Structures are given as C-alpha cells and as structure tokens.
C-alpha cells in the first residue's frame, strides 16, 4: 500500500495536501497564518516559473513583472472601477497571457544570457510603468486593494466565517483558500508535465535539435510555456494583492524576480514539490534573520551561488538522491 503510494504519479500532491491541511493543527497565531498564506501564493507563482525554467530550460529574470501586472490589474479594476474580484482576476490573467505571448515571440528566439537580459528588461519596464502611472497605481507609494469577493461574498483576513458548522477566523479561511489554490496549481502543472506537451517542453531543455527533427515546433512550445508561467504569476499576483490589501510596485520589482528564480534554483529545477520547499525556505529565512535585513539580497545571492556550486539539482532532488544512495548502500550491506 505504502509502496504503491511511492509509485503514484501525484505522490507529491498528496504529500503537499497533507502538509497544507495539517498545518492549522500546529499554528494558530494570525501572523503565522498570514505568513503561510503569503508563502502559498508565492509558491504558486514559483510552480509556474518552474515550468518555464526547470522544465523548458528558458530563464526569466523578470517574472515579478507578470506577478505585479496581475496584482495591479486586479487592484485597479476592483478599486477604481468596482469590478468584482473574480472577473478582474480572469481578465487580468488573459491580458497578461496576451502580453507574455506578444513579448515572448521575439525574445524567446534569444538564448542563454541574451534571453536573461531581455526578460530582465521586460520586468524593469513593467516596474517603471507601475511606478510612473501615479493616477492609476499610486506610484511608489502603492495603493490599497479591496477584499477578495466571490459572488458578493467577501473573503477578508479580518472576517469571521463558518465552514461545515465550524467557526473559522478570516486568517485561517484565507490560508485554506490559498492552500487549495496552490494544490490546484500543482495539480495542473503536474498534468501538464506528464503529457505530450510536457515532454515537448522538456525536450526543448534536453536537446532543441532533437525536438525539432521529430516535429516539435520549439518556438511554439517556448511561447506556450512562457505564457502559461506568466498566467500563473498573474493569478497569484492578483490573489496576493487582495490578501495583502495594499501593494507597492515592489511586487513587480527586480529583487522579487530574483527571489522567485532563487526559489526555483534552491528548491530544485524541474521538481514541482522541490520549488515549493524553495519558496518556504526563502520566505521563512528573513523571519529568522530579521536582524540582518540589510544583508537580505546579499544572502539570497550567496544562497544562489552555493546552490549552483554544491547542489546544482536543488534541495529536494539532491536529498532524494542521497536517500536513494543510502538505501542502496544499506541494502548492499544486508546482502
């Protein structure tokens, strides 16, 4: 039974669901819920980025730009135009998808450092626009975002709700909502990877020439995954904005882009659960090291470097490897 579970295609998802739903048994502090919600939403964006970076092998150093676009689109539509949150989120995601497609077509022809530079520039442009369109975005001072609502029903971290006869606080409700969103994000990503499209994406990473001679239109697949990862970022950005209730252009900033990519690299490129662990570690780290806040970026840089040097496959795949080797060794010793 347990052995069968280890063979299961979605074992990571099952494991993640256990963690998500078990966590409220161990925490009750609103601050901890808030942190966990934030991590879940950012992890969702990282899962999307991993499709692009980990599986298709294309780098994006401007992904916070798409996260920020989704966040601001939702904030502006719900705040200035009284849209409901769900249509704002969906229209925003479609819009960001179209922008990613238009931008992606030309820049995905570039390879390696050139692609990094181009995506970096895209991120910068988005951040600059958000900073300068003061009337809409409030500029560098940021803007408030109304609470998330579904069909007139509002989800606020400060509310009180009842679910299946249980009283739950707004913090917990938001946490559970974000957790379910993350699980859906992981499920969709895993389905995408375990499919002909996923294989085509990984072949772009493995050997673009090989992919093309068996009929994979590599340009098309690179654009597709770029759009999908941008849509992931946009949706998570919109939810993040509603959850935080206030956003600044930092959500689209360069530092956040680097943080996202560091999460992917640290957790393990091409490992969906791994990158979530990366997100958890890098979101918790600043909490632990609150006294060294000025050195945060330096620390992230250091982590990125050390990961690349000592465990280029990332935390989870490296740990899995070590465990497998140990098991093989002890099996050998038994024999």
């Amino acid at each position, binding site marked *: 039974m347990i052995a069968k579970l280890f063979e299961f295609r979605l074992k990571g998802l099952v494991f993640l669901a256990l963690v998500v739903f078990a966590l409220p048994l161990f925490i009750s502090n609103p601050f901890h819920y808030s942190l966990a919600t934030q991590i879940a939403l950012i992890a969702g964006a990282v899962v999307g980025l991993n499709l692009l970076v980990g599986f298709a092998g294309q780098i994006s150093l401007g992904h916070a730009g798409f996260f920020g676009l989704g966040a601001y689109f939702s904030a502006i539509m719900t705040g200035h135009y009284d849209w409901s949150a769900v249509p704002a989120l969906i229209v925003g995601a479609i819009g960001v998808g179209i922008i990613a497609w238009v931008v992606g077509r030309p820049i995905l022809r570039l390879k390696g450092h050139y692609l990094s530079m181009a995506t970096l520039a895209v991120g910068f442009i988005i951040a600059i626009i958000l900073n300068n369109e003061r009337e809409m975005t409030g500029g560098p001072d940021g803007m408030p975002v109304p609470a998330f609502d579904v069909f007139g029903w509002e989800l606020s971290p400060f509310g009180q709700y009842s679910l299946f006869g249980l009283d739950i606080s707004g913090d917990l409700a938001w946490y559970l909502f974000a957790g379910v969103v993350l699980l859906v994000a992981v499920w969709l990503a895993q389905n*995408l990877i375990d*499919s*002909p499209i996923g294989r085509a994406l*990984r072949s772009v990473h493995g050997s673009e020439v090989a992919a*093309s001679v068996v*009929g994979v*239109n590599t340009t098309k697949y690179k654009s597709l995954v770029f759009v999908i990862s941008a849509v992931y970022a946009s949706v998570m950005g919109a939810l993040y904005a509603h959850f935080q209730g206030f956003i600044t252009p930092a959500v689209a900033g360069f530092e956040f882009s680097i943080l996202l990519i560091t999460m992917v690299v640290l957790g393990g490129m091409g490992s969906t659960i791994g990158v979530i662990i990366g997100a958890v570690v890098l979101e918790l780290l600043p909490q632990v090291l609150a006294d060294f806040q000025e050195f945060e970026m330096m620390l992230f840089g250091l982590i990125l470097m050390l990961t690349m040097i000592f465990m280029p496959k990332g935390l989870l795949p490296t740990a899995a490897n070590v465990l497998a080797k140990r098991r093989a060794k002890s099996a050998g010793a038994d024999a």
Partner: protein
Amino acid sequence: MTALVEVNNLFKVFGGVNAVEGVSFAVDAGQVYSVIGPNGAGKTTLFNLITGLYTPTGGDVKLNGESIAKLEPSRLAERGMCRTFQQMQICMNMTAIENVMLGRHLTLKSNLLTTLFRLPALTRGEQAAHAKSAELMAFVGCGEYINAEASAMPYGALKRLEIARALAAEPKIILLDEPAAGLNAVETTALEALIRKIAEQGITVMLVEHDMKLVMNISDRLLVLNYGRVLAEGSPEQIRANPDVIAAYLGG
C-alpha cells in the same frame, strides 16, 4: 516515377568556403542510399541541408516533388523525414522511453484542455505511445533499458535509442549520420541487420558512414563527395571500380 528525394545543384557557402558545391542526386523510395567521402567532404553539411537545419545558399531539395529547402526541421518531420545525428542528440533530462515517446509527438494530437485536466483521451494516447515506444526499443535492440534514465545508458544503446526515436515518428525516409561511429565490430554487425530490417519495412534509408564494409554491404546506391563536390555516384560495384574514388581515398 519521381524520386522520393531530389537534390538539385545544391550549394552551401560558409564564409567564402564552398562546403557543398553544386551537388545533385536523386534517391528512389525504398533504397538504402549512402553518402561517403573523406573527412570534411561535406557529408554532414549535406544532411543538414536536406533536413532543414541549414538553409542552402543555392539550389533546391525536393521531397516527393515538393521543395523543402526553406522549411524548418519540424515541418519536415510532418512530411515524413526524420534523422539521427553524428553528435548524438538525446534528451538527458528524460528517461529512455520518454525519448522515444517524444518521437510520437506528431501522432499525439493533444490540446491544452485535455492536458491540464488529464482527460481520458490523453491517458489513452499516452498508453498507446508508451506501448509503441517499448516495441520500437525492442526492435532496435535496447529493450532492456525501458525504465532507465537516458543519462545512465551506455553509448551503443543511446545510438540505437536515437534510431528508435526517429522511427517512432513513422518516417518515410530516415537519415542516419554515422550510426556506426564508435561502435565495436559486434555492434556494427547488429547495426547492419537493423538497417536491413528498417529498409525491409519500406522506409527509405540515407546513410553517412565511414565503415566501408558496412556501406558496401547494405547500400543500393552510393554518392561519393570530395571537397563538397560529387566525385562519383552509382552502385557499390561501380563505386568500387571507379578510379577517381580510389585516388581520393588512397591519395594516389
């Protein structure tokens, strides 16, 4: 009857050097057609031109009477042309069988919706692709590596795996670029049998190869290149007796 592949006065110039210079020949369906010549003769360049990796400087390549000189490699796969590489192109981030299943790409019609929600149609297609790929791995003789990571496979098996991937695309013509390079005598004999089996299925085979024994054994026709030009073309007997070919190879 028109030839399956028709090459007309093909040119490729790299910075003033004519890598391929006025090459013309035709390959009939069902043939094993080999391209030989000394190192640097332009054999791989010719293959790259035919399979769309390079765009010709001049001349034309026709597949089934249709010009393909300006098409992307992925479009050629749609028209039934597939190839392997001298420098093997295997996706080392995937398992062996996934590499072969990649070859089924064009036969698996999938859209984003069936993929994201993993609808039954997708699983069925995947199972069929898996079965077909396992069959092909057995056919080329690397069936024991079905569950292996590509990165854990030995060189000889990877060369076969690449052929299996090309066959998975159900090509009308397959181009093999030095399939015997790096293989020992036993493996080369097995490769010869494999190429015969492929040809027996009605798949046209084009071959670039240095192993003369292999080439002379299995080819219906040969093209000899030297410095980018056609030195001779004909049956193995004609080529063997051709004084120009002997001179080019022996430096006489």
